[in-house]
């Protein structure tokens, strides 16, 4: 070792170093403490504390109520009195009791001793048995000696066993005598604890919740358990018991799927507690706990968790890391202030904003068109159908649906080229609420109006050039007045509007959409001719085989009347429309457009050459075809030459899971939020909006071309909900799908119901029968007419004024009027599956025969295939929970006691069925609004079991029906068949079943 060099040996002043060291160590300690605190003070901690206080308060209040309830309850008082008395009794016999107890104690000791002796001996015996067995069968030892030993032990053991049993019996006897004394006390105690059970539970809960209720040592423990570091052991606050691991529903981590872990309840602590329904977030309870979260609901919390429906990052435990999404700019501002909210990048599935929350339903309920409780989503799905989105966009749940618009195959017979030009140019000008969207004069192409005009003209030229012939028959002279009555009474208004001034309701519902199922019937005289309407109404399929317009079986004269009404007068004419002249064909412009389109599929030189070889008409028709292909008109319309075109739009089947980066925000990155729903919203509100600022850079052919449907904000929201719900699904959800075979049949039935708009006229399980309002309208006039015609019957005459203003009339008359309207309206189809026989329904749908001859409304003939009719049968039956083969048959006797009884009950002497019911051709007395369906059809039409149910309690099946209940509460007023109500009903039913065959 070198010797230490002389001179100065320290380079630094030690004090300075110490100071530096001290300062850095203090900083070190501070940063460490800071780190601990950051780790400890998680966002959920203050919330959980707050919740604990709230919960304690609520529990205390509940306890008060419960205590008051118990105090005043007889059970409790009784039990208490009983207990007091019993305890007094026991106390009186306390000496006897304690003596007995001490006796029992010595008996117990005796028994224990005897038992032990027995056990020991028995063990010896078992060992001796084994020894003997070894000696006897394996030759290890002396079989004789061991056998003797065993036998001797057996005797001893038995003796000891008897002794032990005796001791046990003595003990049992003593027990019984003691129990006899205390039995009353114990039973009193038991009933007392039963009546205070709820209170005890609350008390126990409160003791765990509220430190004030705790013992001192527990108060200390309550503090210690949640201190930093100490909270590793058994903390009160935390995430551990708030975390849900949802088996089978998974998060996608691309290479694999992992079970969802939801920790939402770290903050949303009251989510499943009914008493937190009115609290503010984050403690508020989930709405509709019967449908969601509760164990008995179809969506129990443990099985579904939160993010499987709502999306978001379930593993997060802070406001931001869970990917909450604001639903509006205001909410966003509020969150930014309150929670320092910022978008969680890098999570593909942010939470649905509240207003789109129903999107989550679609993951499992993806085949259904109406999902109970999901009104926004249902509206969205209906809008997709009505607007025909699936025409241009493939959307799997809507695959195979008919095109949304009318066929243009024979347009030449229907209207003129000029009208068609004006219509495409601006459909809204003709009918304000039409579902035909606007392609032109939009934000991105208004400035190329010249070009647009030529484009429209070219498309129209193509359509008329390719139009097929349609032989129109000459109509007879029509009577517009009668036509009006027909339109209003036949049921046309179930699908069509005829009010030119119609104001669309502000809130769109499924019902308002059903009334827009067909086009509004205004301006028809402008659009087409009475001749065409006549031919159309007479035979819709004659014009277009695939049309959804059903055949109402009108006579030629009726058709002519309807045509006359629809095409004439104010209703048929549209003064302002088409007043501007159609622009001239501009050959240069046309050439330019043609070149534009052709150059995309061939070289410029080739395009020029072939254009020069064309006549102008060839060019117009040719470019028209290209334009129709470009705009995708064939998505909604049947157009010759476009029978097998694929849809032109983006596939939307999984649009909801498309990454945001794949959505082109154009120049609107600052104005539209960078999230998918904001993009969808902007796109639906104005489909061309993302071309903003690009009109001059892009050529018109590259313009965005989705047409504008002029949707309201409410409609847009509903559609955005659908879009968000169209997602790549977690395969794990399949197991939760409500997809039994029965449900699938119901689903396909629902689709048919929607396509045919059955609910426009009939009320079904999920609503409908909307036509009733217009029936009421018509009926008001009809009633007046009838009273004028038949002066003798003044029954409704003086009520007339009351019906002028809705709701002004007095309640009783109101109800009566409504019930009259009801009997002129299409029948309710509630419980139809339980009611009618499948065979009958099958034939009825093919050829509707009149059950209710008094009705003016006509069940139309739909062009249904056998398959579709079978679908209806399955739909109605499975909807009502019927099981295959859906029909039970009964063979009624036509003589005997029962038959006679049935006949008597049926007769005018007893129930007077025929006073209201039609029977064959026999009409009942009274006015048609009192009539009821044909009883001769019972045998072929109704299910026997349903008839019994109906007779028992008609109100239960159709509330408000005029059918009287003859068997109130299952009893009867008639003496027949031993006054047995059930037998009477069967007899009556069986008699009804014979009616049809009787007449033959």
């Amino acid at each position, binding site marked *: 070792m070198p010797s230490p060099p002389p001179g100065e040996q320290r380079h630094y002043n030690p004090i300075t170093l110490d100071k530096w060291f001290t300062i850095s160590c203090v900083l070190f*300690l501070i940063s460490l403490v800071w780190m601990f605190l950051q780790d400890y003070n998680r966002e959920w901690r203050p919330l959980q504390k707050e919740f604990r206080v709230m919960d304690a308060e609520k529990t205390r209040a509940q306890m008060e109520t419960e205590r008051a309830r118990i105090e005043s309850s007889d059970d409790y008082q009784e039990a208490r009195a009983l207990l007091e008395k019993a305890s007094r009794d026991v106390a009186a016999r306390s000496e006897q009791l304690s003596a007995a107890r001490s006796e029992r104690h010595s008996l117990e000791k005796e028994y224990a001793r005897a038992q032990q002796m027995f056990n020991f001996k028995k063990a010896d015996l078992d060992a001796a048995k084994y020894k003997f067995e070894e000696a006897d069968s394996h030759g290890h030892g002396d079989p004789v000696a061991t056998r003797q030993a065993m036998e001797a032990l057996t005797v001893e053991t038995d003796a000891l066993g008897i002794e032990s049993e005796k001791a046990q019996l003595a003990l049992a006897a003593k027990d019984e005598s003691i129990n006899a004394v205390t039995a009353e006390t114990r039973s009193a105690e038991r009933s007392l604890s039963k009546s205070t059970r709820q209170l005890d539970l609350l008390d126990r809960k409160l003791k765990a919740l509220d430190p004030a209720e705790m013992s001192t040592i527990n108060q200390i423990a309550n503090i210690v358990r949640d201190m930093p570091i100490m909270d590793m052991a058994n903390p009160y606050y935390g995430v551990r018991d708030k975390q849900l691991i949802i088996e089978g529903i998974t998060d996608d981590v691309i290479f694999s799927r992992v079970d969802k872990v939801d920790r939402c309840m770290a903050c949303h602590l009251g989510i499943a507690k009914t008493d937190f329904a009115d609290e503010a977030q984050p403690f508020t309870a989930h709405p509709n706990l019967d449908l969601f979260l509760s164990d008995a609901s179809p969506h129990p919390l443990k099985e579904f968790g939160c993010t499987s429906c709502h999306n978001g990052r379930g593993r997060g435990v802070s406001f931001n890391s869970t990917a909450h999404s604001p639903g509006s700019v205001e909410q966003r501002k509020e969150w930014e202030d309150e929670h320092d909210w910022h978008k969680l990048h890098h999570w593909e599935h942010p939470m649905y904003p509240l207003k789109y929350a129903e999107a989550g339903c679609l993951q499992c309920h993806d085949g259904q068109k109406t999902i109970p409780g999901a009104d926004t989503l249902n509206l969205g799905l209906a809008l997709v159908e009505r607007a025909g989105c699936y025409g241009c966009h493939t959307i799997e749940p809507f695959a195979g649906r008919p095109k949304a618009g009318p066929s243009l195959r024979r347009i030449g017979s229907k209207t003129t080229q000029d009208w068609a030009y004006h219509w495409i140019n601006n459909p809204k000008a003709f009918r304000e609420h039409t579902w035909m969207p606007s392609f032109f004069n939009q934000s991105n192409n208004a400035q190329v109006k010249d070009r647009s005009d030529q484009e429209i003209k070219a498309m129209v030229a193509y359509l008329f050039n390719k139009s097929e012939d349609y032989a129109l028959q000459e109509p007879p002279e029509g009577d517009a007045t009668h036509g009006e009555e027909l339109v209003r009474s036949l049921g046309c208004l179930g699908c069509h509007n005829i009010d030119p001034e119609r104001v669309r309701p502000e809130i769109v519902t499924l019902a308002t959409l059903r009334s827009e199922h067909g086009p509004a019937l205004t301006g028809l005289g402008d659009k087409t001719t009475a001749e065409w309407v006549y031919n159309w109404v007479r035979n819709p399929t004659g014009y277009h085989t695939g049309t959804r317009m059903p055949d109402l079986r009108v006579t030629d004269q009726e058709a002519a009347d309807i045509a006359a009404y629809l095409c004439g007068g104010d209703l048929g004419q549209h003064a302002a429309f088409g007043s501007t002249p159609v622009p001239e064909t501009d050959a240069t412009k046309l050439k330019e457009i043609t070149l534009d389109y052709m150059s995309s599929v061939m070289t410029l030189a080739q395009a020029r050459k072939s254009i020069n070889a064309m006549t102008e008409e060839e060019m117009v028709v040719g470019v028209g075809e290209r334009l129709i292909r470009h705009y995708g008109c064939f998505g909604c319309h049947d157009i010759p030459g476009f029978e097998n075109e694929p849809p032109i739009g983006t596939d939307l089947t999984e649009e909801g899971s498309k990454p945001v980066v794949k959505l082109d925000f154009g120049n609107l990155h600052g104005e539209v939020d960078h999230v998918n729903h904001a993009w969808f919203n902007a796109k639906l509100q104005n489909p061309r909006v993302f071309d903003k600022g690009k009109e001059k850079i892009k050529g018109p052919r590259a313009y965005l071309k989705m047409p504008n449907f002029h949707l309201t904000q409410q409609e847009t929201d509903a559609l955005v909900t659908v879009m968000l719900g169209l997602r790549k699904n977690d395969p794990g959800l399949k197991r939760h799908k409500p997809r039994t075979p029965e449900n699938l049949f119901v689903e396909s039935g629902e689709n048919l119901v929607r396509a045919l708009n059955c609910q426009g006229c009939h009320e079904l399980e999920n609503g409908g029968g909307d036509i009733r309002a217009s029936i009421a309208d018509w009926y008001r006039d009809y009633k007046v007419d009838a009273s004028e015609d038949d002066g003798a019957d003044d029954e409704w005459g003086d009520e007339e004024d009351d019906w002028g203003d809705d709701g002004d009339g007095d309640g009783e008359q109101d109800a009566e009027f409504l019930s009259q309207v009801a009997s002129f309206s299409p029948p309710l189809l509630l419980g139809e599956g339980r009611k009618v026989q499948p065979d009958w329904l099958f034939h009825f749908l093919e050829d509707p025969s009149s059950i209710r001859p008094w009705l003016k409304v006509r069940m139309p003939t739909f062009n249904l295939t056998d398959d579709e009719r079978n679908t209806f049968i399955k739909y109605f039956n499975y909807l009502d929970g019927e099981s295959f083969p859906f029909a039970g048959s009964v063979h009624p006797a036509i003589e005997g006691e029962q038959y006679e009884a049935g006949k008597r009950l049926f007769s005018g002497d007893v129930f007077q069925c025929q006073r209201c019911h039609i029977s064959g051709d026999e009409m009942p007395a009274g006015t048609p609004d009192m009539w009821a369906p044909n009883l001769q059809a019972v045998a072929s039409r109704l299910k026997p079991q349903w008839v019994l149910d109906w007779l028992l309690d008609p109100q239960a099946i159709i509330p408000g029906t005029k059918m009287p209940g003859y068997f109130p509460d299952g009893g009867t007023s008639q003496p027949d068949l031993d006054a047995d109500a059930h037998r009477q009903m069967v007899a009556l039913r069986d008699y009804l079943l014979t009616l049809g065959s009787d007449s033959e």
Partner: protein
Amino acid sequence: MSDNAPDKQISDATQVSRRGFISWMSIGWLTFAATMGGFATMVGRFLFPNVLFEPSQSFKAGVPEEYQPNSVSTAFKAKQRVWIVRTDDRIFALLAKCTHLGCTPNWLANENKFKCPCHGSGFRITGINYEGPAPRPLERVQISLADDGRIQLDKAVTFRHEKGDWEHPDSYLMV
């Protein structure tokens, strides 16, 4: 510390009062030691996770009325290894784990006993051992009524007869 004399060779300029020297240095080292202790604590705390992914020790088992008097429910044996027993007036839960060597006994309803297949230990319906090698009665687990009135079981807390635990109010439910 008191032996710490300043180095004699350090120049006079660096000599300072002993007090200042000691206090700077001691504060420094104390905070340093405290911080090191903090780090050790941090490592210790780190080893105890805040959330668990193992099956929960506590579960719910229906309402008391579901159980018949003097019967043994084996509904939770497979998943939770627990029998729920109802005597005349009590419901309690027995851990299905033989106190001999930890096998899972079977409930033999006809013979009214639990019998362990491994070494033949037998237990009465109450859980008391009466035959075979088992040294002590079966253990009971904590049972209580939850807020919603259903039975709540927690296997993390057990009660032993030989310790007199079976009279603990959490070891049974009165019905």
